[in-house]
């Protein structure tokens, strides 16, 4: 995969960034850990579930795991491979032909229709005691399933122990990874969209717009992030579903990025290439999207990576304080919150989620550092 040994003269900007990134050991490991975490989170229902993956009843093979999947998991299972397939085959699928798009639309419509017409089976039964042939997931417990084994310390039966209602912590950790990772990622995407748009507009058009946006950023920056988020959640009075949390974190954490993009744009606008584009008759939108944005993308990416780390931190703080997701949804911060009350004996309740948060945030920070050095070696902390 490396471009080492290739003609360095002919590598483009992103190839160079990738080569420099790969040279950073910590960055490489960080990226590996993040990818592994995403894979674990994506496969969580298949890794920790009380239903068997496969079992044989009266000579018939069945997969009891599938009826228990939530619609969002079905969407995930179908749309992600679809997107990958589409991307891989994009050149062969007759460019500009409408057939592949129609096929994709048909698949989406069929999935959505089926999901709308069927409901996930919410039975609390489990297949652990099933006598015949069965293939259980590695962790044969679901994250919301309570049992009589309260506060069991870690053992081969319960890898990370159980909590007060006998729920398996390993299963809750795996499913909690989905909460943390997706909130971190989506919240930061929202923040990048808002920050790049406002910062870009301020830096490109300057004048009154710039003053207005800068003033707004200044005002917003006076509110400590956690306080602002808590107050919005406190005032909104709605049920805290995942999307409210994502939106609130995203909409309150864009100011740093907006400042950065504004600075980059101010610097880039003065350079010859956007002026040349303008002289050739390019419109503002064209100059911003095709000329300025690609040149500012490196620093944006670096800042966004660190941003994901802080969004995950904020999400876990919120869950820890009890202002995160609704109760049955597992989240790392939520397990830690529970750990507070049994801290004097149930060390496993605190240890595992704390390590998970540490490892995730550290990996993102390592990737961020490596990216920063790769994007602009001058910024390297000597």
């Amino acid at each position, binding site marked *: 995969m490396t471009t080492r040994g290739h003609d360095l003269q002919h590598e483009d900007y992103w190839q160079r960034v990738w080569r420099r990134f790969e040279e950073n050991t910590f960055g490489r490991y960080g990226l590996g850990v993040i990818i592994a975490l995403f894979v674990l989170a994506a496969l969580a229902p298949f890794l920790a579930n009380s239903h068997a993956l496969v079992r044989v009843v009266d000579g018939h093979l069945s997969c009891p795991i599938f009826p228990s999947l939530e619609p969002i998991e079905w969407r995930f299972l179908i749309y992600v491979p679809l997107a990958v397939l589409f991307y891989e085959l994009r050149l062969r699928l007759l460019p500009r032909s409408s057939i592949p798009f129609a096929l994709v639309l048909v698949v989406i419509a069929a999935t959505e229709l089926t999901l709308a017409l069927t409901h996930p089976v919410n039975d609390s039964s489990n297949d652990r005691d099933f006598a015949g042939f069965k293939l259980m997931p590695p962790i044969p417990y679901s994250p919301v399933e309570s049992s009589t084994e309260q506060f069991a310390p870690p053992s081969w039966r319960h890898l990370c122990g159980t909590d007060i209602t006998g729920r398996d912590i390993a299963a809750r950790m795996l499913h909690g990874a989905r909460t943390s990772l997706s909130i971190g990622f989506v919240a930061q995407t929202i923040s990048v969209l808002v920050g790049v748009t406002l910062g870009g507009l301020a830096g490109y058009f300057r004048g009154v717009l710039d003053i207005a946006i800068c003033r707004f950023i200044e005002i917003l920056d006076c509110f*400590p*992030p956690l306080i602002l988020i808590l107050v919005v959640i*406190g005032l909104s009075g*709605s049920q805290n579903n995942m999307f409210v949390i994502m939106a609130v974190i995203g909409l309150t954490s864009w100011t740093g990025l907006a400042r950065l993009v504004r600075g980059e744009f101010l610097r880039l606008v003065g350079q010859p290439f956007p002026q040349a584009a303008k002289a050739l008759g390019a419109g503002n939108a064209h100059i911003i999207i095709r000329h300025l944005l690609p040149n500012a993308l490196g620093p944006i990416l670096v800042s966004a990576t660190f941003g994901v780390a802080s969004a995950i931190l904020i999400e876990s703080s919120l869950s820890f304080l009890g202002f995160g997701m609704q109760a049955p949804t597992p989240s790392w911060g939520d397990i830690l919150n529970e750990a507070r009350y049994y801290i004097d004996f149930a060390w496993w309740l605190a240890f595992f989620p704390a390590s998970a948060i540490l490892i995730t945030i550290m990996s993102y920070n390592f990737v961020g550092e490596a990216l920063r050095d790769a994007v602009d070696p001058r910024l390297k902390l000597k």
Partner: protein
Amino acid sequence: MTTYILRRLLLLIPTLLGITLLTFLLIRLAPGNAAMLHGGGPNSRAITAEAREQMIKLYDLDKPIPVAYADWLGRIFRLDLGTSFVDHRSVAAKIAERLPLTVSLVGAAVLLSYLIAIPLGVVAALKRGQATDRSISFVVFLLYSLPGFVVALLLLMFVAGGDYLNLLPMYGSNSINADAMNPAAWVWDRIEHMVLPVVCLTYASLASISRYARVSMLDSLAQDFVRTARAKGLPEKFVVFRHALRNALIPIITIFTLELPGLIGGAVIIEEIFSLPGMGQLYFLALEARDTPVMMGTTLLTAVVTLFSYLLADILYVVVDPRISYA
């Protein structure tokens, strides 16, 4: 200098107005409160009819936004933040009695993080690239990635109470029998109770300050005057402390103001974990009880404090560095 400070103070006014406007709009446009005017709403279970009357009166929910804002602003300037829904005491008084604890907590954390971070940063810069530098950087990085509440939990588990070490008290700002103690014992008791909270609050800013200190020291060591000092044969100790460090300190002095918003947010969590009766806990309790006047009063106060700390940073910067002149 005076002109500069005066100009900065004048520029403060629009931002202050902006802060109050944003706070007011947050209250006014919150879905729960809009619904409250018409009765019911998602918050209705948590709020009594009396509190509802009070909300409408306090924030003029029944008047148009500009009128209501002007009214509310007038009251804010007279430091009238309303009364709490929970115990009907004035919000300003509630804040005033809890402020000293939080100020001392945050102040101690800032002081302690400077005292540890600057030597760390300087040593890392002097041993640049060597094992010492790399291990300091790694530890700092590890600390930087560990949320304060996680550290608090781990400390509670292993140092205070529990089955392991029982060195320090777990909760509160004083022991239950503190009133009966003599002053010296009372102070010692308070210190014992504050050790863990201060440690938890310190180390996050410690990480970022020591990184700044390292970079600043490296910059300073690369300057011409350091080379000159070395060339004229000054002892290395003299070069490092008299010439390089003094100049490296200039940008670091103002850094703590940037840490302040994070520290205030951190104080909410730390005070909640250690049951310290400070501003953060007041805010948290208000949030849980949906006690809007207290919630907004504390939010507004933290924003104003942050704004003034930014101002202080800018002024300090000019004061410490005679090369910068904004007059």
